């Protein structure tokens, strides 16, 4: 579902539940994977992402555009992941004061990871827009099925699976042509 962009941002700023559900749908997985890069701990990554989202939800912070919101979420998640790493012993303190504002110098490495994860996030959102057949094949291969297994399951030739898969990737890349401002959530 693509949504009016301003409406969504306004909804997020105003803490409308529908907008927050979209926000979760569009960012949660990517942010978890991002934090997991730093922590290598899936459960902790999910906790940190949730803490950050809840803290933003509770704060009166307003965002001027989606870029600002997106960068902010990555930064806040990263900062909190770092703090967590430093203070593994005192986890409780983190829950009590989530750090949103501290500017932590983003090193080259984490910057590259942020770029990478954000692009992956956008691509991931576009999967929903794939034509139905292509999407099914994409989803099956994400779920771990091999080419021959997919062919058997869907009753099509392995050749078709391959061409459809290639076409899907091409389609996803094609979508990247659209203005970055319109990226889906």
């Amino acid at each position, binding site marked *: 579902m693509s949504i*009016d962009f301003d*409406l969504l941002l*306004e909804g997020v700023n105003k*803490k*409308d*539940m*529908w907008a*927050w*559900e979209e926000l*979760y*749908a569009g960012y*949660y*997985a*990517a942010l*978890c*994977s991002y934090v*997991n890069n730093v922590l290598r701990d*899936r459960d902790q990554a*999910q906790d940190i*992402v*949730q803490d950050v*989202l*809840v803290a933003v*939800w*509770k704060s009166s912070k307003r965002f001027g555009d989606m*870029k600002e919101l*997106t*960068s902010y979420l*990555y930064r806040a998640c990263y900062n909190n992941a770092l703090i967590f790493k430093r203070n593994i012993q005192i986890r409780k303190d983190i829950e009590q004061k989530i750090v949103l504002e501290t500017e932590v110098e983003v090193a*080259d*490495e984490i*910057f*590259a*990871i*942020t*770029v*990478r994860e*954000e*692009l*992956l*996030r*956008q*691509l*991931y959102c576009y*999967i929903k827009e794939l034509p139905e057949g292509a999407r099914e094949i994409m989803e099956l*291969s*994400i*779920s*771990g099925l091999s080419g021959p297994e997919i062919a058997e399951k869907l009753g099509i030739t392995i050749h078709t699976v391959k061409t459809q898969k290639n076409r899907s*990737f091409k389609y996803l*890349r*094609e*979508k*990247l*042509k659209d203005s*970055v401002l319109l990226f889906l959530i």
Partner: protein
Amino acid sequence: MRLDLYRVVELFRKSFSNSLSDKEKEKLDDVLQNTYLKEAYDQLSDEAFVLDKFREFDTYEYREAFNKLKTFQHRVRIHRWIAWGSSIAAILIMGFLFFYPWEHQDNVQKLAGVTQHIVPPGNNAAILKLADGRTVEIGKQPLELEEGEGSIVKYENGRLSYSSGENRAIEDVYNELIVPIGAECHILLDDGTEVWVNAGSRLRYPVVFRGEQRKVMFSGEAFFEVKKDSRPFIVSMDAGDVRVLGTSFGIRAYPGETDYTTLVTGKVCFQSKEDEKVILSPGEQAVLHLSGKLEKREVDVEEYVGWKDGLFIFKNKALSEIMKILERWYGVDVIFQDEDLKELEYTGNLERYDSINAFLQLLERLNEIHYEIKENTIILHK
């Protein structure tokens, strides 16, 4: 090196979709001098890597986390409000139960199960009246049919939708959606406008919007998210019209009751049948009293449109008003044995998808009210 995240993301996007200009190509080459960014770029070029990452994304389920956030929402609201009841204890219990209804539900239902039956919430159901007068029941099974030469009507995943192909019908073809008491329905009209129709409502609309304006006929309660379009969208009701371009707003216009039009975003104009007009900005509400008096006021919009997101939100609301709303949603009749109970006021949130018993138990806990359920009738007494 200090680079802007979006500058780089955009360069990558353009590179992967082969739409870089020469200048941008140079810029990208520059950026890729950085070994980390080069590595990220190479990873993104590798389909197997991308698939692996998607696989990881798939393992993080956002719904559970989002549901947790929702519980915060309740908590914050309760803190923010000054609950109003007849005693401090009552307030505390009410706040507590309103925000932990799910934890108590097991208990409540066990208790209630012995003596009384549970009245479940409404569900997704409606009757669709087609142009030729046939009626179709929707809600249980997916549905797909053709209406008015080339328009496809579909019902799936709880939503009814219209889409017209190339063939635009020549004549106006109208359908009507009738949502009975104890039900709700979500509909996507042909122009992209979405409507959440609440219990006890009727919406009549053309299968395809033609001409210079988009007009629908409505009675009951609904939340409209009108797709922006050069043609105005008009909701025509018994008491007046709401005219908009692209916006979201709630309407409550049940026959014989005060009408409310509540604006969430954009701008709307409410015009009564007597040609009186008010223009609303977000957060404002037009109230048309039964006396015919038209009034504009500021409200907390959630109190009026929260039902769409699964919550009943009451602020200093008289019990008689609350029960009127619950009657429609749960499909019950409420009898007040003591008239003065009607005047009691309550503040709090109720989960729309809980059984009505959760709320009744709460009233009982306040030591003011007792209830009996006989089939679909609820009797309240002291």
